[in-house]
């Protein structure tokens, strides 16, 4: 057993209001630079929808992630047999058109325009060329446009649905959608790291954050292709790849990453998980329907004395063990089994987990009246007639295993039903009682889930272990060396920066 500690995250999709505050916080801090204008290390997509970059989930086109190869794993592309020929031109690399051409407005014209009959306008110009631009596409162009044939209908996750289910889902009266905020998953088996020909991308051993060493990155762009989530971006100005750094400078000083901190819906949870690094490859090599379960099994119980002893032997500090015991992620992912990784079938072992959304699944309109009934009589037929088919959610969160989704939905329903009866001083009816029992949750657990979901405080949502400054990298090596390792931006002025 090789016990390591890993940063990990939960996004509770039922709570996301799609306000993009997280994206803007991130943009302002990290990617408001030339060459990075188009990058959204954090972005929020509407599902069903094609996302950003467009159709990123289409791995036939982008060839990201791992595939099973006998007993082991092989990169979908960029592996040792084909990487060389892709150095000169990468057939699967997304280009500017796959993202969007970033623009700004000539705000100055509003003040400087000479007096005239018309109101001055701020004309949009490309942030790349500075030329006038006819805006056709943006990073969140499909926002709330679910159902429109250009976006939702092209969602690759719909491929698993029958034509009938598809048309039902996209029918305007039944239109249903939810938001999916995405950042780098800081995977435990990252394909970007495995694909980098120069060995410039690495995982920090202490916390698992994935960083691009700007000094040794040669701009081959293999990582951009290999990351199935398209969360590594190529900076066209510096010729280097960049990605989400999980605001590690904030983490190291005890603050939550900016997107977590600013989240209006308070959907984000941050914690650490202890896991067994020796078993990662094995766990990611099982058949698709078992991936969720085999990933869960790698996480270790931070209360188990044997685990604690082994962790300490590996140099994991008491601070980290304390944090692991209090980790909200451990609760959602391992204890309650309510949070799932996105597209686990890419086999990168993402460390960002999502609690699937319940509301759009539940809501229903009968005779033009929208009902969100929870009297339980309709259960479990309610789940089978959900507006967003469970199959669709399964395609996103459990590699197609509907049973996994159904179990989580039941737990969420159970918590709601119990809390509702408490508030209304009503007895639970028989079918609901049966449902609560089926979930296997104890009454205490139900209260705990309710609390962490609805009422948790800042410190309960973000459990960040204290860093030992004496072990920080700047203490071990020359600070100039750290500068190159920092993961983004310019290490020296690129030519022609204006």
């Amino acid at each position, binding site marked *: 057993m*090789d016990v390591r500690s890993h940063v990990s995250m939960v996004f509770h999709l039922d709570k996301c209001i799609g306000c993009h505050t997280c994206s803007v916080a991130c943009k302002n801090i990290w990617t408001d630079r030339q060459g990075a204008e188009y990058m959204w290390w954090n972005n929020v997509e509407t599902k069903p929808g094609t996302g950003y970059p467009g159709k990123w989930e289409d791995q036939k086109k982008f060839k990201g992630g791992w595939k099973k190869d006998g007993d082991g794993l092989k990169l979908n592309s960029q592996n*040792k047999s084909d*990487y060389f020929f892709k*150095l*000169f*031109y*990468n*057939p699967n*690399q997304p*280009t*500017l058109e796959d993202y969007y051409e970033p623009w700004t407005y000539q705000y100055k014209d509003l003040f400087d325009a000479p007096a005239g009959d018309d109101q001055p306008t701020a004309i949009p110009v490309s942030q*790349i*060329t500075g*030329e006038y631009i006819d805006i056709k596409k943006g990073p969140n162009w499909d926002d709330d446009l679910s159902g429109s044939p250009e976006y939702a209908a092209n969602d690759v996750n719909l491929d698993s649905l029958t034509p009938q289910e598809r048309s039902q889902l996209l029918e305007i009266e039944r239109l249903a959608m939810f938001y999916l905020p995405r950042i780098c998953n800081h995977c435990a*088996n*990252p394909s970007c*790291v*495995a694909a*980098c*020909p*120069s*060995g410039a*991308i*690495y*995982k*920090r*051993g*202490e916390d698992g954050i994935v960083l691009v060493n*700007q*000094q*040794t*990155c*040669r*701009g*081959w*762009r293999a990582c951009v292709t290999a990351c199935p989530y398209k969360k590594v971006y*190529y900076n*066209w*100005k510096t*010729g280097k790849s960049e990605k989400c750094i999980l605001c590690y400078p904030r983490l190291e000083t005890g603050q939550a990453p900016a997107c977590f901190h600013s989240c209006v819906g308070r959907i984000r949870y941050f914690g650490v998980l202890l896991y067994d690094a020796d078993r990662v490859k094995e766990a990611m090599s099982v058949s698709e329907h078992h991936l969720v379960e085999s990933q869960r099994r790698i996480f270790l119980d931070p209360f188990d004395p044997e685990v604690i002893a082994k962790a300490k*032997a*590996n*140099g994991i500090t008491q601070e980290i063990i304390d944090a692991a015991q209090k980790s909200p992620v451990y609760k959602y992912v391992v204890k309650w089994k309510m949070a799932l990784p996105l597209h686990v079938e890419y086999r990168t072992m993402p460390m960002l987990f999502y609690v699937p959304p319940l509301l759009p699944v539940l809501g229903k309109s009968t005779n033009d009246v929208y009902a969100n009934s929870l009297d339980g009589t309709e259960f479990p037929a309610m789940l089978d007639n959900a507006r967003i088919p469970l199959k669709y959610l399964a395609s996103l969160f459990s590699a197609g295993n509907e049973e996994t989704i159904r179990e989580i939905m039941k737990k969420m329903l159970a918590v709601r039903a119990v809390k509702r009866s408490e508030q209304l001083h009503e007895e639970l009816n028989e079918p609901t009682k049966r449902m609560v029992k089926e979930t296997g949750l104890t009454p205490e657990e139900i209260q705990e889930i309710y609390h962490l979901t609805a009422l948790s405080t800042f410190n309960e949502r973000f459990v960040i272990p204290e860093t030992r400054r004496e*072990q*920080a*990298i700047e*203490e*071990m090596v020359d600070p100039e060396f750290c500068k*190159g390792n920092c993961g983004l931006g310019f*290490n*020296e002025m690129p*030519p*022609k920066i204006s």
Partner: protein
Amino acid sequence: MIIQFLFIGLPYAAIAAVVIGTYYRLTRKEYTVSSLSSQFLESTFLKWGSVPWHLGILVIFIGHLVPFLLPDLWADLVKHRPILIALEAVGFVAGVMCVLGLVVLIIRRIFTSTLQLVTKPLDFVVYVLLLSQILLGLVTAYSYRYGSVWAPGTVYAYLYGILRLSPDMTYVQDMPFVIQAHIALAWVILMLIPFTRLIHMFSIPLEYLFRLPQKVVWTNEVRWNRRSERAQYMESRRYFFRGVAGVTGAAGLLSFGVLEKSGHYFQGQTLDDAKEATLLEKRLKRMKLTAEEKSYELERLKNDAIFIADLKELQPATGKYFIDYEMRPALAFRDAKGLPNLLSAKCTHLGCTVGKDVDGQGRIVCPCHVSYFDIGTGVPQAGSPTEIPLEHIAWHLRATDGTIVAHGTPDGTVATTAAYDAAKSETYKVFIIKSKGVTVA
């Protein structure tokens, strides 16, 4: 003088620039080591430019490198005509691919507005140099065929000379202009490598083939000291050391060469008598040869006509070598009418001396790359590497008393005078004449 600069000064300047510049860029400016990719901004044309360009240039690169590193293997290969033809064809196609790819790359860069943001003036310098170099290479391959056969003995011999610090320009100074330009431009391009995007040639990521899939960096001391982590680290260090050993070895050899030479210079001779004697003998022989050559030159400067043979010595099937007014080798035959037939023997391909034996079809052959020449007209047979005929050489045939009885001109016309008497022909003597300023009596 300019030749000296291009083939001796420039090469050493280029080598120094590459070594020092590359070292500086790889160590002090590591951040900038790459070829700024523009695929993100424009992808379609890049595909049709970059792929043919790189495949082509890599084939050509290997084709230039193998004969340099493994001359014996190469010589064995090109001995077989089918292999030779195949190699030449592959090289030529690769060259054409390079040109097409490069043209696409250049056009793409000029006409795509987003690309102008990531283009520097030096990029265009690189384009122009590379395009010129490939075109010169293609012209060479086309006009001086079978470079894979002739280059190892000439251009590469010159290259080895440069690397052994005893540059010998004789190999290249008489080469046709195109080949000279190709060689000189190669030095210029080499020199620019560390200062342009061409530096990316030194960042070919071969270490990827050997590394573990995941890379983890620790600052934690406990983990650092653990064996498995250490093993990974040691593994990467092994590769590093191997690389260092390679570079140090190469640098060592080079400096050893330099030091040894300078040592000798300061130390003076340290040979025993016998060795010194042989050396002296050799030198004497060389001096004698030079003296002989100079005496011929003098003879030609002083005389308007020079005796080369008695007519009776000449034969139709085997030529007699002599040296013409331009100090070139030449051949004398006797034609069907019993008159002399004088031809230059300096092959019009790359200047080897053409053989003296006439085959069944009235041809002589150059041993270097098998150009067949008709001895009547001097014209090479179709399919030979050269298309330029051998020149005729002007001559006089004189009787014993000195009267001219017949003459030939550089265009190959032959005429007898009234004094010609076939019965006395065995006593006639053949002279070559200065073509200019000497008229037929």
